[in-house]
Structures are given as C-alpha cells and as structure tokens.
C-alpha cells in the first residue's frame, strides 16, 4: 500500500485511542486498527439486548488521569463523569453498611459496627491519602529502572526516595507494610469490624488470582485512594452512556486532531524486517506500512502472536511467557424489568446510586477464593454491582434497569480446562444470580436478559489474555520496572520501532489512560515517531 503512517496503533481500546490522540495532536499521521466493529476494547458500551445498553466489561472510572481529560479536551468531546454517591455493602440478614461522601454520615454508619472503627476511619483515609501521593508520582511518570544506571532514571529514583523519606517514619513503615502484607492483615492493624474491612479489602484482589489474605495484596488498596487527590473529592465515577462513552470521547478527540480510525480491521501480524517493525498485515492480507507500530494489546498477544518468538531475544521471550495473566473474574450484565430491591434497604435511593459490594465478611471472600484455588468458580462470589440506569436513565427504557455485575472469582484455569468454560457459563451465571437473590429476593422475576462473560469469553471476544482485565496481574512483582518484564518498562521493546501503550505496560490496568499517554509522550520525547 502506498500510504505511509507515522504510527499504526493496534487496538482501539481506551489506551490505544489516548496514545493516538496524543500523537495526532503532536502532528503525527496516525492509524488506529480495531478488530471489533465497536471502539473501546474493554471500555465499551453495547446494546446487547434491544433498548438496554450494557457497559459490557469495565463499568466505572476511577483513575482516568485528569491531565488527559484536560489535554485531550474530553469534556468538549462528550465525556460526562458522575461521581458515585455511595459504597454500599448489603447484608442478607443485617443492616448492611453504606459509606458516603459525607463524613458525618459515614461515621454514624460505621459507629453501628464499631465506635473505634468510626473514629479511626478518617485517620486511615488521611494516611492512605498521603501515601497515595507517593503512588501517584509513580503512575504519572514512566517507570524508573534501577538497573539501567541512566542518570534520568537515577534522578527519578532519588526523587522517589526523597518523597519516601518525607513521608516520615510512621508512614514509611506503613508503606513498607503495604508492599508486603495481605490486605486483611493490613486492615486488621486499623479496624476491628469485619463488615467494614471486607469491602475495603477487596480492592487489593481485583483482577488478581490472589485472596484477601494473600501477602502483597495490601499494596493495591492504595490505588483506591489515588483518585481523591486531583481536586475531586471522590474516586469512582460513572460515565454517562457507560464506559464506551469514555472511549468514544477519546476517539472523537483523536479524530479532531486528525487520527484515522478503522474498525473491523483485525491485525494478523506485525511486519518485522531486520529486527525492525515496518508495519502490519491485516487478516485480509492487506499490508500497511508505518514508521512505528504501537500495540495497545497485552504483551502476550503483542509479542507471541503478532510479532513471533523468532524476532525476540530469548530472555525477553521467556520474560513475556512468564508474565502472569491468570484472569480471575467474569462479568454479568442484566436487563431488568424493574428495580430489584435490597432486603436490608429497600427502595431506590442514594444508597444504590453507587457501587454495591457483595462481600459480607472476610471469611466469605476467602471461601470464594478457596473455590478458585482448586479450579472452580466461587459458589458464593464477591460481586461489585452498579446499576447504570440509576445514574443514566438513558441506559434502559423508562422504568426498566440494567445491572452491571463484576464477579470474582471466575478463574480462567478451571479444572475442566479453559476451553470448557462455555459449557460452565450458564452454571456460573446461575451462581451469580442465586447469590445476589439472597440480597434481592425479587431479582429472578425481573430478569429480561442476561449476558454472562467468563474469562474465556473475555479472551475470545476482547482479546484479554486468560481473561485478565488488567492485561496481566497487578501484583507487585509485575508492576513498575517489571511491567511487562525487567528492562522493558518504558514502552519500547526489543523490536525496534515497536512500542507498547496498553495496560500491560507501566503503570498497568484500569480505565486511567496513563500507559497510552506516557507511551506517546515517551515516543515524542525520543523522536521515535
């Protein structure tokens, strides 16, 4: 083909689009290739059942970087984020717990469980908020590599070290504990109420094949507190129209800067010649040349499928093969005839306008993990539920609703083998509905349609290796300069002119756009594109 692009971006998910927008804004000629007919990757909204829009995979926005919203003028391009009102943990036989943005109200709620916990809760928030600044420094800058001995990397590490020192002894100790302890052990040091600790602990295990009592899970708790320090007072938000609209606003921004986007254009191979990427071949045989090829797909798909081991140094290929995916979650989307009321707090009110966590106790969560450890989905899983139609009535016909249910654990590696997930799919869906029915007794009668996505489906349909929603586990050993593998955490790869810009690169997954933005900046800075 005659046309030559400065950059081809494989994958039209939110990170690919962010990267495309930044490069196009800098005047580069950019082409985005998306395999599916819709943009967004795993941040996608689709009308799966007539009249009902599902925010199919990811469903909330917590860490979308504010600088990206500003730089790409996403509000002008239609982004509408509404903060979630409440974090609600219902109980099958108990009053449940709501945590509100109003600290007095939250204190009152927690007091019913433990007066001590109610008192310490704000102090915990303060400590985590300060530590989150430390972590934010990490997610807003490319990962420094201590082994590189590059002056810029060392300076950056020095800066981090200084920050660490500035935390003071108390917080420094907390930071160390966070990096090594389990989420539960860490929370045990602060709180006594199980009902409070269990919804707090789950942020440590999302997207990992670990339990709340597994060491190292405390670190991810910190991410929860990061969104709160960009001037907004709350971390989680729902995007009007679902997360697909986040992607679409980025796509519109990218196009306004001149980026070209093609859907239904599956990439077959990255063209590699003399160790350099020169373009891509599509499934239909078309070859498209570009000065650089940037993959927003996960490292396994990028290197082992699109590039091929033969073009990779052995050590690197081994590193990529060892990169852990181990998807552990599924997703159930429901179209509902009416709102399924919760037993402990009936009615539609602010308590259901946020995220709802089914995790009545720490033991419950650990038992859910037990099932998964031995190759089964949890009979009583942890669930995180949002009713998008309560936040954006346009998601469902009048009076009707949609539910978005994130479910963990649904291990990719079930004992029957992942390829047998399709035959277990409906049983998994039933387990979800049965569990939720214990809290919402009328749920079953109100279901008009249900979409069950197992980790196998996430892999087949959305290209997420082993169904891992973060393009690789967000565990400490796979973060920072180890993401996706040591020495290659700064978006470049051993194949010249081939770059990474997806969640498998630093700083990892979630709808934050940071890998896409930082990859683009790094390439522009190095004159690579």
């Amino acid at each position, binding site marked *: 083909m005659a046309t030559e692009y400065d950059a081809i971006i494989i994958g039209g998910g939110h990170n690919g689009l962010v990267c495309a927008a930044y490069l196009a804004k800098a005047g580069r000629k950019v082409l985005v290739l998306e395999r599916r007919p819709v943009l967004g990757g795993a941040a996608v909204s689709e009308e799966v059942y007539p009249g009902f829009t599902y925010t199919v995979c990811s469903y909330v926005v917590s860490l979308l970087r*504010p600088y990206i919203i500003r730089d790409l003028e996403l509000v002008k391009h239609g982004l*509408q984020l509404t903060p979630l009102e409440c974090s609600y943990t219902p109980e099958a036989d108990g009053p449940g717990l709501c945590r509100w943005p109003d600290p007095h109200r939250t204190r009152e709620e927690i007091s019913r469980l433990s007066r001590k916990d109610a008192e310490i809760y704000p102090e915990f928030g303060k400590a985590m908020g300060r530590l989150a600044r430390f972590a934010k420094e990490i997610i807003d800058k490319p990962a420094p590599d201590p082994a590189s001995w590059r002056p810029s990397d060392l300076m950056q590490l020095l800066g981090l070290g200084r920050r660490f020192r500035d935390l003071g002894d108390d917080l420094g100790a907390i930071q160390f504990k966070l990096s090594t302890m389990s989420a539960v052990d860490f929370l045990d040091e602060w709180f006594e109420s199980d009902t409070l600790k269990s919804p707090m602990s789950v942020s440590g295990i999302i997207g990992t094949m670990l339990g709340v009592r597994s060491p190292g899970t405390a670190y991810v708790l910190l991410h929860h507190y990061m969104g709160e320090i960009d001037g907004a007072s709350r971390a989680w938000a729902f995007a009007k129209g679902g997360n697909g609209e986040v992607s679409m606003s980025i796509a519109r921004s990218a196009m306004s800067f001149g980026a070209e986007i093609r859907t239904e254009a599956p990439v077959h191979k990255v063209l590699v010649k003399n160790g350099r990427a020169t373009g891509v071949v599509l499934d239909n045989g078309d070859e498209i040349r570009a000065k650089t090829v940037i993959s927003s797909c996960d490292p396994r798909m990028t290197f082992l499928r699109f590039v091929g081991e033969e073009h990779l140094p052995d050590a690197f290929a081994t590193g990529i093969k060892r990169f852990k995916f181990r998807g552990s979650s599924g997703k159930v989307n429901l179209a509902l005839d009416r709102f399924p009321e919760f037993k402990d707090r009936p009615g539609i009110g602010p308590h259901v306008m946020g995220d709802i966590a089914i995790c009545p106790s720490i033991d419950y969560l650990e038992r859910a993990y037990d099932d998964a450890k031995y190759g089964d989905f949890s009979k009583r899983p942890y669930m995180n539920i949002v009713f998008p139609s309560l936040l954006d009535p346009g998601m469902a016909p009048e009076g009707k609703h949609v539910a978005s249910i994130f479910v963990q654990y649904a291990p990719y590696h079930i004992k029957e083998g992942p390829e047998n997930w399709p035959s277990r799919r409906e049983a998994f869906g039933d387990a979800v509905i049965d569990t939720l029915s214990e809290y919402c007794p009328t749920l079953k009668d109100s279901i008009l349609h249900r979409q069950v996505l197992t980790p196998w489906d996430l892999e087949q349909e959305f290209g997420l290796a082993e169904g891992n929603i973060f393009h690789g586990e967000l565990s400490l050993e796979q973060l920072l300069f180890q993401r996706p593998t040591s020495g290659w955490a700064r978006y470049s790869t051993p194949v010249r002119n081939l770059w990474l810009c997806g969640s498998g690169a630093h700083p990892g997954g979630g709808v934050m756009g940071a890998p896409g933005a930082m990859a683009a900046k790094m390439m522009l800075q190095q004159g690579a594109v």
Partner: protein
Amino acid sequence: MLKPTPFHERTTALAQSWKFKDWAGKVAISAYDAHSEREYFGVRHAAGLMDASPLYKYDLYGPDAAKLLSRVATRDITRKFGVGRVTYCTWCDERGHVLDDGTISHLAPEHFRLTSSEPWLRWLLRHGRRLDVRVEDSTDRLGCLALQGPNSRHILEQCVDFDMDRMRFFRVRKTRLDGLDVWVSRTGYTGDLGFEVWVDRADALAVWDALMANGQRFGITPMGLDALDVLRIEAGFMLQGVDYFSSKSCIIEARKSTPHELGLGQAVDLTDRAFPFVGQEAIEAELKRGHKWALVGLDVSWPELEALYEEYSLPPHLAPIACRDAVPVYQEDGRTQVGQATSHTWSPLLKQQLSLASVHPRYAKPGTQLKIEHTVEYERRVVTATVVERPFFDPERKRTTPGRA
C-alpha cells in the same frame, strides 16, 4: 431577619444539611447535602432545580414600558424586540458606571419584566415620571425556579402545554404547567441548557411538586447556591457584589466599572437610537479614551499548583466550593500587579482551576500568561494563570433548538 420565599416549605424540608444563606433578605439554601458536588453534577449531567425567587423582579406595563427600559438600560428594546424575547442587559448611572445587570423579558404587548440583583424601583419610577408606564415591584408576588441541565427540556415536556422542542434560547412563553399559569423562559445562570419558571406565589408549591415529580426519572435534584457558584464560574458569568460592584454602593470611583470593562459591550446599543440611555454620553467618551479594565477568564496551571503544594509536602488542597476572596494578578514576572482575580473554583468537570479576573486591557488577550497569587501554608506565592476565552464550559446544547432542523 430573613423572610421565606414561596418555596420555603419545600426547600427547607429537603435541606437536611441546614446550610442556609441570606440572599437579598430571603432564606436561600447553600447546599442540600454536606457537599454541593452531587447537586453540581446533577445540573451538568441531568437537571437541577433551584429556588431563584430572591431575584428582584419588576413588571412594567403600558405603552411606554419599552421606552422606560430603553432609557434606563443600555439596550434599545423599542425595536426588534418582539413579544417572547428575552435579553441580557445592564444599566448605568449618569457617569456610565454599571449599577446592575439582569434580564428583560417581553411577556406580552406593553408588558415587560426586568430582573436584578438589587432593588431598583425608585430608579425606575424616577426615570418613568413623564412616561405612560406602570411599574410593579413583583419581587414578592412571583416565585422563580431555575430548572437547569441537559434533562431540563425533557422534564418540562412532560408537564407544559407547549412544544419545548420549539423553545429557542433567550425566549419566554406563557404556558400552563400541570394546569397552572406560568411563564417559562429559556434562560439561566449555569451556562447550560436550562429554563426559568415564573409563577404566582399562590401556585408556587404546586409547580415545585410538579417539576420534582416529572423530573424524577430524569434525575432531577434540588440545587443550592454553592453548586450555582461553581456552575456560573464555569459559564464565565460575573456576579454583582463579587466580580464587580454596583456604583451605587461604591465609596470610591476606582471600585466602579463601566459596561465595556466588564465585557458587556455587546449589551450596549449606541447607534440608531431615538433617545439616549442613562450614562450614554459618558460611555461614548470612555470608548474614545479607551477603557481601563477587562474582565477575563483565567486557567490556573494545575501542574504548577501541584508543584507548589509539593514544596510544602502537601497534596493540592483547594476548597471544594467556589471561593470569592479577591487576590492580586501579576505580570509574568510575578511582581507588577496588573489586576485582581475575584472568583475562583475548581471545575470538577474540566479538571481545571478557574478564576474570573479584571486586568488591564493589554493583558486581556487569550493566551497571555499571567501570575495569580495563591496562599499555601499561610505563605503568599504565585502560580501561572493563562487568559482563556469565556465561557470556560460552553456546551452546544445550551443554545440549540431541536425543533429547528
């Protein structure tokens, strides 16, 4: 002592926060919740309902009503201002200094309504002495509800006898809302799609109830003044008593402003007039001389704010509500003062720190880099602020009419 508005029963019952405020001697709600953020997003993403009754309102009747308003205000509404039109306007003293700003609505032949932030009955009567016009202070007779946000049109569609799709920006209609007589105008102070509903005191509660009931499925939320303050800054709207001062209350000349200094030149009709307005001569003289100030929007550099707080090992700490403490604005050197910023807010939508400021006109060009004072840990520092176009947020839906292809 504060007096209730016509919606007092409803608004105060819902305001569990107990956050009240004096607005022109009436009880107004600052925020219904502990935070105003939910109300703010309610308006930007769904719809907010605010009691705007404390606004001063004057109904003018008679063949010379338009003449009186065109003599007092800087707009000439004696021509090309048919029934159903609304205009934003300002009025001045004899020296061309702004007294107030508000809207004029042409409700019916020989019937206009003026809104304002301060009382102007005496001023209107004085200038209407020799005219055939009757001026009614309708402030307490009428309740006013601002229904603002992208869903506001859908809500009104449910309950008014009028095709809302045909309601154009800055138009007013007499209609029935759930069978009650009201005026609906497509106006507001949020810079979003929005309407104001004007109703007789006696029917006020019924109108509130109808809008709340019909708004339920469109995510309507009662909204207070804290949210409004953030919204109006995003919309780039100045506020009398904050961003400028009515000349009638200024002790010194330096505090007074002319319409052009406030960026209201568009609202001043100087040519083809049958008669001059109050202050016209002074304004013409000012235009020849050049004005001293320009009202601008400032985008305060967030990275610099973050870095500044970082020096103190603090996270950027900004009040969660709009702030009205005026601070100096400097040239890029950070030393030579060129103006003052009078309203500030963090925009939860745009993720930007915004200010409204008055600066010397040579610094008013968009893109100009200035410095704004910012206090951290009791220390006065400066950060970069860039002059940007107002409104900061300007959605298309604000002025588009779906009924018109």
